[in-house]
């Protein structure tokens, strides 16, 4: 390694440039006064103003937010239970099937998941009359299914690494398992729970393919609105929207890092 100390860092720098270049370009051009990508027309915030008055995006954004909060919360519960079962229950009947079912949505092509879920909703409606039509509920169910797998991965690795001695001590002192889980286990895995919820939230608010399959008339999520607008070409308003998302993510990540650092100090 000593003879070529520069090779890896150079490749690493190139790789990061590749990863971040589009984001940087997006942010810069969101402040471009000109509508054309190549022409720099001076600094302007007019695209942000236009975005703030675009009822289509505002409605879609509000809907996406509600879908994301609901499905991330549902996925957190289901995913955490699945992680507990996988880490703590040892061998049980159906473990192999369960484990495969938990992991498969991570890589399954979205078009397949979207089509499969839509056909299921249609079949359910025909047989039981529920869910009636497609819309908020079907999108939430689809996103929950998608995100559960990610929550399970995050919570599962934390549970597996966790020191069990506190739990065992509490159990030996006679605490009931449910109480031990609530008072000891949950606080210990809280960072993983927060991370899993955020991941599920991100997946939901970003999903376009599955949503397009399972949504109904009148239920346009933000990514669907963005996708249909982007298909028509480059638009500065989307640059502004993208910049706002990047800013929000940066703030959340920064806050989370700060919080973790402070926790470590104390």
């Amino acid at each position, binding site marked *: 390694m000593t003879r070529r100390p520069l*090779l890896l860092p150079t490749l690493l720098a190139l790789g990061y440039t590749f990863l971040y270049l589009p984001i940087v370009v*997006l942010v810069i051009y969101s402040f471009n006064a000109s509508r054309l*990508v190549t022409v720099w027309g001076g600094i302007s915030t007019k695209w942000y103003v236009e975005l703030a008055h675009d009822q289509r995006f505002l409605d879609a954004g509000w809907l996406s937010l509600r879908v994301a909060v609901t499905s991330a919360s549902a996925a957190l519960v289901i995913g955490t239970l699945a992680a507990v079962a996988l880490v703590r229950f040892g061998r049980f009947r159906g473990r192999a099937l369960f*484990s495969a079912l938990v992991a498969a949505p991570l*890589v399954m*092509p979205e078009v397949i998941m979207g089509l*499969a879920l839509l*056909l299921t909703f249609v079949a359910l409606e025909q047989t039981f009359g529920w869910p009636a039509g497609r819309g908020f509920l079907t999108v939430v169910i689809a996103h929950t299914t998608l995100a559960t797998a990610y929550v399970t991965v995050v919570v599962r690795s934390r549970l*597996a690494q966790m020191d069990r001695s506190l739990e065992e001590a509490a159990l030996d002192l006679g605490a*009931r398992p449910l109480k031990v889980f609530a008072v000891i286990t949950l606080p210990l895995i809280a960072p993983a729970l927060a991370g899993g919820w955020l991941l599920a939230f991100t997946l939901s608010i970003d999903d376009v393919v599955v949503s397009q399959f399972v949504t109904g008339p009148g239920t346009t999520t933000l990514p669907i609105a963005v996708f249909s607008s982007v298909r028509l070409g480059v638009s500065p308003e989307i640059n502004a929207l993208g910049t706002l998302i990047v800013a929000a993510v940066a703030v959340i990540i920064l806050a989370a890092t700060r919080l973790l650092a402070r926790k470590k100090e104390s």
Partner: protein
Amino acid sequence: MKAPAIARNRGGAGRGAWGRRVVLALPFAWLLAFFLVPFLIVATISLATPRVGIPPYVPVFDWSGGHLWPSIHADLSTFSLLFQDELYVGAYLESLKIAGISTLLCLLIGYPMALGIARAAPNRRGPLLMLVILPFWTSFLIRVYAWMGILKDEGLLNSLLQWLGVIHHPLVILNTDIAIYIGIVYSYLPFMILPLYATLERQDPALLEAAADLGARPWRAFLSVTLPLSLPGIVAGTLVVFIPAVGEYVIPDLLGGGETNMLGKALWDVFAMSRDWPTASALAVAMLAALVLPLALLSRFQSRMEPAEDGK
């Protein structure tokens, strides 16, 4: 007294059979209802005959006869039409080709990056890894869209190259396969780097020292020590990128233009434009058939790589 103590230690969330059953039942039922059963429904409808109506197919199992057994209207014609249609066969092969080449490119770019992070000073690894994951948290759709502005004929890349005098006429990149490769590699790179890093970081540096002591040059040591030991990471990363890339829809649609035909796009078009649900289902089944082997391989690898759990 011995037996309850053991049961307690293993209990955790739910001592006794009841608690366990409740904990297991919810996720199991959810995944059965909204993940496994949907695939069976897709497989069934791929055998149905299309028709104009709601739903746009003739149900395969028909209970209307009033018998205990349904009459079955299974029909393989959708599949036989699929195999005879050059458009779909072409899309099938094109998807596998594009996903394969993109995966290879991801590996070639991701491996040095993962190695670079694993060989960095320990206190820098965390932040460097964070930088790889960070773009994943921002909108995938908007990052793919950003490439449209960079790659189009009068886009940033062409302006830059023309300004530098490297080219005199704009390169046509957007709406070609090259743009799809760029988009897929860009979007899936973090998924390649993470498993690679996980195996590379665990490697004992003493192994390389031993190789050096025995006279191996750095390249030789890399080829005979580092690379073979990172094989699990290579396989995992390759599968995690390849499988979803085969069905990719957004990237070929936005960057590849109307010309390129990948399976995911064909599936959506058949579903949404022609409203031909049996053909869309048959395409999904055909896509799954190509992915069964990679999926099985991945689940084996994951179970081998997962941390020590009670199930082992």
